[in-house]
């Protein structure tokens, strides 16, 4: 394949568009594997991570990915994740060496300037945060490149071309444009960044291409737009057309506090004009969250339907409401289990030491210790509890959110045309010394 081809038409013959008719060489994506197997794997590796003060997390991540990858089986044959925990550890060390100078020295200089010139820390924090943003995009692209380079299907490697700084630059510009247009051009950013990544993605020798136009993503944003319009209409109605109280428009900032007072009193303040209308506000808030989830995933579906390689097409029937339901239920279940677990720990410790011992311990926790325990030990106990809660959350999130989403994504994806697979051959190994070290060090690696 020639690299000089323009992205929109890289082939001599135009690729076949995804058609509704299943073609004879079409391929289903299966998903095998049970939720509880994954739960135990996540729990076990999470436990090791606590025991090793976090160092096992490279192994944990590798093992979870291996599991997920092997569960996804296009045409019945599993994907394979060949990433190595040791190379992740090495990548983390490399990133620490590079970033430690940047973050330490730059932070110090920024703080100095901020205090010397502006007499406050805010500017320093702001500049320090802003300085990390391009690195953040850079690290995300590099992490994707690493994961793709370590993914195989039917023995053939995936890959992503170099171009992390280009990605970071484009991401910054698109974000700026999106913010300046108050989000109206958000779909343009979504599409452009996805196209940048997809057009550099390979399976073996075959280059993937993102087709379609960015305006097609507005369809995914319809629920969000509807909620925003409804919100504006409601605002006009209760503020201008038929105000709840006459003075509301002159002092709109007082509305939230009055709303809270009303909740505490259990009744609406006198003199309010049909205040039941305010119940629409929490409904609209939930609608906004749904709209955001819907946009994110349905946009993925639309773009997946317009991805293709030579002789290979994709079709996705992913459902936005289903994904939203998984998020809602999964997060709810995770929270419930977590809260119950913590309550159990508290009850146990109270029954062991008595309530006063617990209180005394809590009072001294700032700098003293729990009761008679030495300070380092109580710090250690606090640390382990902190880590445990954190990791338990990760385990539950894997089990109740990541797993069902992966399953839904896999099962709703098909490859209607696969004839082009015959023409694909292996690509070279991407050595990639620093793995996803930057993403790990900048804490982007929490997601699978």
């Amino acid at each position: 394949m020639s690299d000089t081809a323009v992205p929109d038409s890289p082939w001599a013959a135009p690729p076949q568009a995804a058609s509704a008719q299943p073609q004879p060489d079409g391929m289903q994506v299966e998903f095998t594997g049970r939720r509880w197997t994954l739960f135990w794997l996540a729990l076990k590796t999470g436990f090791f991570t606590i025991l090793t003060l976090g160092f096992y997390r490279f192994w944990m991540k590798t093992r979870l990915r291996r599991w997920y990858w092997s569960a996804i089986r296009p045409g019945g044959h599993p994907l394979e994740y060949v990433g190595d925990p040791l190379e992740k550890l090495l990548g983390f060390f490399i990133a620490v060496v590079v970033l430690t100078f940047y973050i330490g020295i730059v932070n110090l200089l920024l703080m100095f300037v901020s205090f010397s010139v502006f007499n406050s820390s805010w500017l320093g924090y702001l500049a320090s945060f802003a300085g990390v943003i391009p690195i953040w995009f850079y690290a995300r692209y590099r992490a994707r490149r690493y994961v793709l380079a370590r993914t195989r299907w039917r023995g053939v490697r995936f890959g992503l071309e170099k171009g992390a700084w280009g990605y970071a630059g484009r991401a910054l510009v698109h974000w700026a444009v999106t913010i300046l247009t108050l989000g109206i051009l958000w779909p343009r950013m979504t599409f452009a960044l996805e196209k940048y990544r997809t057009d550099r993605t390979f399976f073996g020798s075959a280059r993937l291409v993102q087709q379609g136009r960015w305006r097609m993503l507005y369809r995914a944003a319809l629920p969000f737009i509807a909620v925003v319009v409804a919100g504006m209409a409601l605002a006009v109605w209760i503020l201008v057309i038929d105000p709840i109280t006459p003075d509301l428009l002159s002092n709109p900032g007082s509305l939230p506090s009055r709303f809270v007072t009303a909740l505490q009193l259990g009744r609406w303040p006198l003199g309010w004009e049909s205040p039941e209308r305010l119940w629409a506000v929490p409904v609209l808030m939930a609608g906004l969250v749904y709209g955001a989830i819907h946009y994110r995933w349905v946009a993925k579906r639309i773009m997946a339907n317009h991805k293709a390689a030579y002789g290979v097409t994709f079709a996705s029937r992913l459902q936005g409401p289903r994904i939203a339901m998984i998020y809602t239920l999964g997060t709810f279940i995770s929270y419930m289990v977590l809260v119950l677990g913590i309550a159990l720990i508290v009850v146990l410790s109270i029954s062991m030491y008595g309530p006063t011992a617990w209180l005394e311990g809590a009072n001294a926790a700032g700098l003293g210790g729990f009761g008679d325990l030495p300070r380092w030990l109580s710090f250690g106990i606090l640390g382990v509890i902190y880590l445990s809660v954190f990791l338990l959350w990760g385990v539950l999130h894997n089990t109740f959110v990541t797993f069902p989403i992966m399953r839904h994504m896999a099962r709703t994806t098909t490859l209607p045309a696969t004839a082009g697979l015959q023409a694909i051959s292996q690509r070279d190994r991407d050595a990639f010394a620093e793995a996803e070290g930057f993403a790990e060090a900048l804490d982007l690696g929490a997601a699978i």
Partner: protein
Amino acid sequence: MSIGFDAMGAAFFEGDRPVAEEVSLHIASGILQIGLDDGRILRWPVGDVRQLPDTAGKTGAVLRLKDDPLARLFVTDASLLPHLPNRFRRTPPKGRGRLAAWALAAVAAVALQIGVLVPLLADNMAAYIPPAGERALGEATFGHIREALDDTGLNPVPLCEAPEGAAALERLVARLDAPTNDVPQINVAVLDHPMVNAFALPGGFVVLFRGLIEAAESPDEVAAVLAHEIGHVVSRDPTRHALRSAGSIGVLGLLFGDFAGGAAVLFLTERLIAAQYSQEAEAGADSFAHDVLARAGISPGALGDMFESFRRKYGDRDGVAAHFLSHPALGARIEAARAAVEVGAAYNPALSAEDWAALRGICD
């Protein structure tokens, strides 16, 4: 003897094209024979066959040959697996030396950063930061510390501001007032917290804890602590320290990564309060305190008395005035304080009896 296996759904991938080749599977005399459609037979010694770990689902295992990074055999017949004795054995990891080198480099980079570069930069910058900036730095740090000391983390620890006590404290500070001109104005605050401690912050803030005032046996001891902390202010030790921390916190957050911005902040607060200055800085603050106390007509021995009495009362336990007690040269510092007492000089108590009572009640 040869054992045949069900090859329905099994597939071989030679590692070049993503096309499944149908196979027939046999094991004979310790060799796994993989028969391909074109008549070729691949021979894998059973001892060299490995199974990919952490595979989801009960149906299907992926096998590979130990030294072949690409070829994969997907099998559906689980009865084949027990014939592969080493299928769970790992291939030894490569590149240990490189890993060790980078690990060492990472540790060295962090150590160099926290131990040399940041202090060096901070010490130089501390001299150039203008007074207003220094004050802002101190105020910000003081706010963080007050919040961190509170157990709930919601309300900052309150200040003690009973009017009589505050007036007594003001008189004490006025009596100790530093002799040089380039000293920032000293601001003394009392925190309503039981810890026996005191510290100085950038911009001339000196903070005493209620626990210290309660534990002191005489006003002279409080005066001695004050003088010592003012000594730190004069030599700008806290400014250097705060700048160093600003540089170090990012590095620590980076290291602890995933879970624990929280731990890094905890650690930092701990360091700020139990500020361990260098031996020279402590000695400098001590000798400054001796001079100031002597000039104010207060016995410099009070500093030694305070070290002594704290050590007697609390032993060398941590959490108690760690700032003063954990220093290795404590004995020498007590002696230095005693030596600064001039024989025959007339010393007065630092505060009158009423003022002392008022100061002790500053938190009521």
